């Protein structure tokens, strides 16, 4: 568990944040560029000195402004992965990977072995290469391995995919998922891309102008209106989480979310697996009667919670689907009037299975 409470002033910009990140799991720090994310990473890592606050990992106090205590960055054992990888250009991949490992005290136990890291991140064919002979995605994988081999108590990933194009991003993301699921290390993942966060994180800390504006599990934060300012109106939608109930005859995964079952297309789904699904508000149809003969796979009984004005002539309807799970639906104000939607009204939410993308989370093995 990481607990952070930090203040730092740099010229006009003031950073004042408090959040925690559980072990294991990925906590995303989400915010637009310039909101202080990278500064925050430097402060947690000890590369930059805060003005005040506390940084605590498990029971170890690494920084305490009140007691003038600050553990040097080199003793904090935080696995930092930077946006630009920062591999040592004069060393081969193997030496890069072992740089931190060789500097660990003999007394430190080293559960994360060289072969584990090489296997997990698929680095076997790269060991004798030099950084300039690697692609952007390979560099980030080596940087992840280098951080892991230093036996970190915490991983700090500072937009590790930001410098990569879309194809490379897809190439690295599965490795990040494997990393998340393989080790019981808290991971702080800095990003400004909600789709990455959706795939990797279970907790989201929303940052704006150096402050935490929302903090909680991804389902809660996904319904926060302040997220809209960061992701844009087209990406507004509730994130719901559930477990794979069964795989239907057509090979689609049936995921239980709240009292509802959602049919989702999902590769390699395993029964019991935890799935995170973003249901975009613009993909949800609201009906007061259940239509017959319709292609829509998901017909979910729901109760209207609230109706709020949205962009243009539309409104955003929050729908309760049971057990604190809610969906967001964007419909025109006119449709809302014609259907006479109001709080507590019972409706049906219709969602095409093909518009849903599920992201699997394995249960950590260690």
């Amino acid at each position, binding site marked *: 568990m990481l607990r952070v409470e930090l203040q730092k002033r740099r010229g006009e910009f003031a950073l004042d944040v408090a959040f925690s990140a559980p072990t294991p799991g990925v906590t995303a720090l989400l915010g637009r560029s310039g909101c202080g994310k990278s500064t925050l990473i430097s402060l947690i*890592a*000890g*590369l930059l000195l805060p003005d005040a606050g506390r940084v605590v990992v498990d029971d170890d106090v690494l920084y305490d402004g009140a007691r003038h205590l600050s553990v*040097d*960055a*080199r*003793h*904090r*054992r*935080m*696995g*930092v992965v*930077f946006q*630009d990888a*920062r591999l*040592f*250009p*004069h060393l081969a991949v193997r030496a890069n990977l072992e*740089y*931190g490992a060789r*500097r*660990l005290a003999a007394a430190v136990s080293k559960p994360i072995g060289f072969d584990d890291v090489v296997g997990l991140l698929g680095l076997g064919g790269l060991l004798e290469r*030099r*950084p*300039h*002979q690697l692609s952007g995605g390979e560099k980030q994988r080596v940087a992840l391995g*280098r*951080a892991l081999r*230093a036996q970190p108590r915490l991983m700090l990933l500072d937009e590790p995919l930001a410098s990569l194009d879309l194809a490379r991003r897809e190439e690295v993301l599965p490795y990040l998922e494997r990393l998340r699921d393989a080790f019981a290390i808290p991971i702080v993942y800095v990003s400004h891309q909600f789709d990455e966060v959706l795939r990797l994180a279970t907790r989201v800390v929303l940052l704006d102008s150096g402050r935490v504006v929302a903090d909680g599990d991804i389902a809660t934060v996904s319904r926060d209106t302040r997220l809209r300012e960061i992701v844009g109106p087209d990406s507004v939608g509730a994130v719901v989480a559930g477990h794979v109930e069964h795989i239907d005859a057509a090979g689609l995964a049936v995921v239980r979310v709240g009292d509802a079952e959602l049919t989702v297309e999902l590769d390699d789904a395993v029964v019991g697996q935890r799935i995170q699904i973003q249901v975009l508000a613009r993909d949800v149809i609201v009906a007061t009667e259940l239509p017959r003969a319709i292609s829509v796979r998901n017909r979910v009984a729901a109760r209207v919670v609230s109706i709020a004005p949205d962009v243009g002539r539309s409104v955003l309807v929050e729908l309760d689907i049971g057990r604190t799970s809610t969906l967001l639906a964007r419909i025109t104000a006119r449709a809302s009037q014609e259907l006479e939607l109001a709080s507590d009204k019972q409706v049906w939410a219709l969602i095409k299975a093909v518009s849903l993308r599920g992201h699997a989370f394995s249960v950590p093995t260690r």
Partner: protein
Amino acid sequence: MLSNVESEALWLSLSIAARSVLLNLPFAVLVAWLLTRTRFAGRTLFDAFVHLPLVLPPVVVGYLLLVLFGIRGPIGGWLHDRFGIQLAFTSAGAALATAVMSFPLVVRSIRISLENVDRGLEDAARTLGAGPVDRFFSITLPLIAPGILAGAVTAFAAGLGEFGAVITFASNIPGETRTLPLALYTALQTPDGDPVAARLAIISLSLGFAGLLVAEFLNRLMRRRLGR
């Protein structure tokens, strides 16, 4: 192929230049590091002082060395009484004079590569458990190696031709301090010395040319190693 006088002058030149470079490097790295990485009072003054040999007439440098390092000078006297080391009028002194003259060149070269080192790499090393000295030797020094090498080669090449400071501080002693340029100068002062001077000039020319080629080769090798 070479006469005794010529080969003697050639080897002396090479030896003095090489020794001057070895003397130079550790101090040059230190001074370059101080100038790029630290802020202290009088830094600008220190910077100017380091660069003085570039703008002073070499004879003045030689004279100042004589004042400081001569047998009766404050440093030279101490060295002589304490360790029996004499610098003035010896080849060691010639190496010292050559080192002082080329020092700003080496500092400049190392400083430029130090300024180009990505500090982010040092930060990364720090998060991986490397202390300041460790970071310098494992990251910074290998990254500035091309700059150190370039500085060393330039200093060596310039050192082969150092004249004013050497003749003032170490005099023109055959077999001790009579390097190629001093031998050439001596030949010109001698009646019928012109052919000797011409041969010495050709040797100097070939040496300089070879030096530049070697420098370029080493530079490419280094860059390839760093993947630039």
